[in-house]
């Protein structure tokens, strides 16, 4: 067994070394750092101004290369579905009712409670702001969606799991996620350049997908167990 392990490490070392050398060779052939050769960047800026999109990043994401963004969106959807499939309670496992447990840090300091609850609406507000401001400044649906998706989980940090489970009915978030993704499919292909609408669709989709993925993780960690 040790011999196999040694051979594996030798092969890995040789491969890594070779790769490092070849990669260095390729990097040495790149244009020098800090030059002004940016043909794509120059064109993208011009194109975004031409279509009246103030933020070039948004213009690239939701207009010029909207098909890429569509693919990335769907990767997130597929990953959320993957979490549903791979983390489901399988035959030899049992799933508890959330209400049976006061799972989570129910005994938190009052100080944390006092800061945690008021932070929830503030975090949601920040998330909405980042989504809504995406066409003007860096940010947008992806970043804002993540903030929105994680905001709900403040309830878990300051309260307990049943409280969290109550405010995120999974079917509702599934519908929200897929409806937003469907809207984005149409936007990306048929109405490329609708930056505000695209940001909203992406924000809803990403937020819901995060909630769903985390919900699966919570279930796996807290509720599903293998009977002794």
């Amino acid at each position, binding site marked *: 067994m040790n011999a*196999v392990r040694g051979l*594996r490490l030798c*092969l*890995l070392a040789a*491969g*890594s070394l*070779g*790769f490092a050398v*070849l*990669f260095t*060779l*390729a*990097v*040495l*052939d*790149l*244009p020098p750092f800090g030059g002004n*050769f*940016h*043909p*794509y960047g120059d*064109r*993208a800026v011009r*194109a975004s101004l031409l279509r009246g999109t103030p933020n070039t990043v948004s213009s690239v994401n939701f*207009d*010029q*290369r*909207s*098909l*890429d963004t*569509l*693919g*990335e969106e*769907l*990767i997130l*959807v*597929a*990953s959320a*579905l993957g979490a*549903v*499939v*791979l983390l*489901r309670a*399988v*035959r*030899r496992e049992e799933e508890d009712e959330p209400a049976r447990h006061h799972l989570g840090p129910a005994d938190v300091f009052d100080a944390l409670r006092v800061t945690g609850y008021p932070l929830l609406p503030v975090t949601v507000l920040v998330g909405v702001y980042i989504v809504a401001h995406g066409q003007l400044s860096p940010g947008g649906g992806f970043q804002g969606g993540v903030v929105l998706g994680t905001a709900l989980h403040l309830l878990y940090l300051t309260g307990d799991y049943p409280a969290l489970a109550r405010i995120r009915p999974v*079917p509702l978030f*599934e*519908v929200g*996620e*897929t*409806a937003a*993704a*469907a809207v984005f*499919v*149409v936007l*990306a*292909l*048929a109405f*490329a350049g609708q930056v505000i609408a695209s940001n909203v669709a992406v924000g809803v989709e990403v937020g819901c997908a995060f909630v769903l993925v985390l919900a699966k993780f919570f279930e796996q960690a807290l509720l599903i167990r293998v009977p002794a």
Partner: protein
Amino acid sequence: MLSPVELAIAVPFLAAMVLAGAGRWLPRVVVDAVAMGATLAVTGLLGAVLWEAVRYGTVVVWVGGWRPHGGVSTGIPLVADPFATALALVVAVLTVAALLFSWRYFTEVQAVFHTLMLLFLGAMCAFALTGDLFDAFVFFELMSAVAYVLTGYRADEARSVHGGLNFGVVNSLAAYLSLTGIALLYGRTGELGFAAVGEQIRAAGGPDTGVRVAFALVCTGFLVKAAAVPFHFWLADAHAVAPTPVCVLFSGIMVELGVYAVARTYWTVLGGAEETTARALAVFGGTTMLLGGVMCLLQRHIKRLLAYSTVSHVGLLVTCVALARADALAGGAFYLIGHAGVKGALFVGAGALLNRFETVDEHELRGRGRDMRVTSCLFLLGGLALAGLPPGGMWLGKVLAEHAAPHGWWWLTVLGVLASGLTGGAVLRVWLRVFRGAGRRPAGQAGEREAGETAAPTPRVPWLMLAPGLLLLAGGLLVAVLLSGPEVLRGARTFTTGYAGTVLHGRPSLAHAGRLPELWTASALVKGLAGVTAALAVAALAVWGRRVPPAARARPVWSALHTLHSGHVGDYVAWLLAGIVLFTLLVIV
């Protein structure tokens, strides 16, 4: 209004979202109907696009209307040339077959299975049709993410999760390498479109070392998907555990899309016909043909056996790309379509066995399939077709590839007969043992039981499960008759010439229809029969040959090969790195 090309991508994604959102409340029959309806719609759309592409030339659609001005654009083109469209059409047809097969399929987890199949369909279509390197990477990732989940779909079996994990780790690493290569190409050229990158490199005086390394890195990702040796380890692990309809898509087209992407990158970025790249691809292709064939014969798990035969056949496709000639590519196209049909049919047959006996172990099943006439027929004809029975697509493809090979490539003929004999022979051996009960009971420990894929074992395999197998087999066997040879050759010429002109400058793409070599000649038929004879001999020796001395003496070799295919993901990663270095060195030196 969206063009048919865009619709072919939008329809499966939209249907997938409907099923993912509403699957919780929809009855099973509606879920089936929506999935099947969307897939048939995509098939129709792609059929129409293919007709247009063959008749009037490549269809180029710039998403969002970002048409190029003076040959430059910041947008993403969808390029429906005859080859890309035909590949997408193969994806759609195989998805129809897979969905038919899974009509009676297990119904766990809402409509997630159907959602994933539709996402897979859309991702593969977009991957085939896109004319942009980075966009290809995005849909490569989507395709992979869905494929990992589908592999591990039966998550209650540890083996499924293991297979999915190995697949995920190896393919994700490969994708990062592709992305690194794309970043290097972007750094050099400031472009991301296949056509635009190629134009910039030509304008700078052709590829140098840096470009070649970048190209090799991009291709590595695709070659891992294509399961070229030594990147092939994940494939058998994944195929052995993935649900049967998923295997039909994996073996039939997903793996082959990796070869397609290598070819697309090769011709658009490097311009095709590079001596060093041809050598690298030939070395990898030839090794893959041989090792895949040998490993195929060594298996007793039928799905694993079929998986290794896919490895071997992909080797020939890689070699077709290495030949860098339009007629070799036309051969590759015939081979790919023939293989998709035949291998799909064989997996359907394996699925029928699994659902009835809850095992696909060849030794366990010995003689138990005597009353399964249709499945038996699938394996017999499938084995012969893999070995190159005329007029199958695999026969014609191999003949064309050998015809296109220059003088120094005598090894291709030898490897061709060997690969046919080993892969076809292995399947015929399964047919003899399982359906004819031939040979002695093989010694060795019992195989493992697996859960079937239907709610209860199916004593009589339903027609709805076997029909797609029969249709695929018929398609695979009749490709050479059904498809017009000159049109395929013209598609290959369109693939190899004038891509940048068509995409960036709107020049007409129709290449001249060429003449294929005469097909029904004595020598071509002899080549086909040589493969079939070799397969019959291999099968007979495997079943009735009592301890053939050479095979017994080579036992250390077989056990070394088994050790090599350890299932340890660390080994796979080490081989991945070593393979990259070897491939890159062959490309640049």
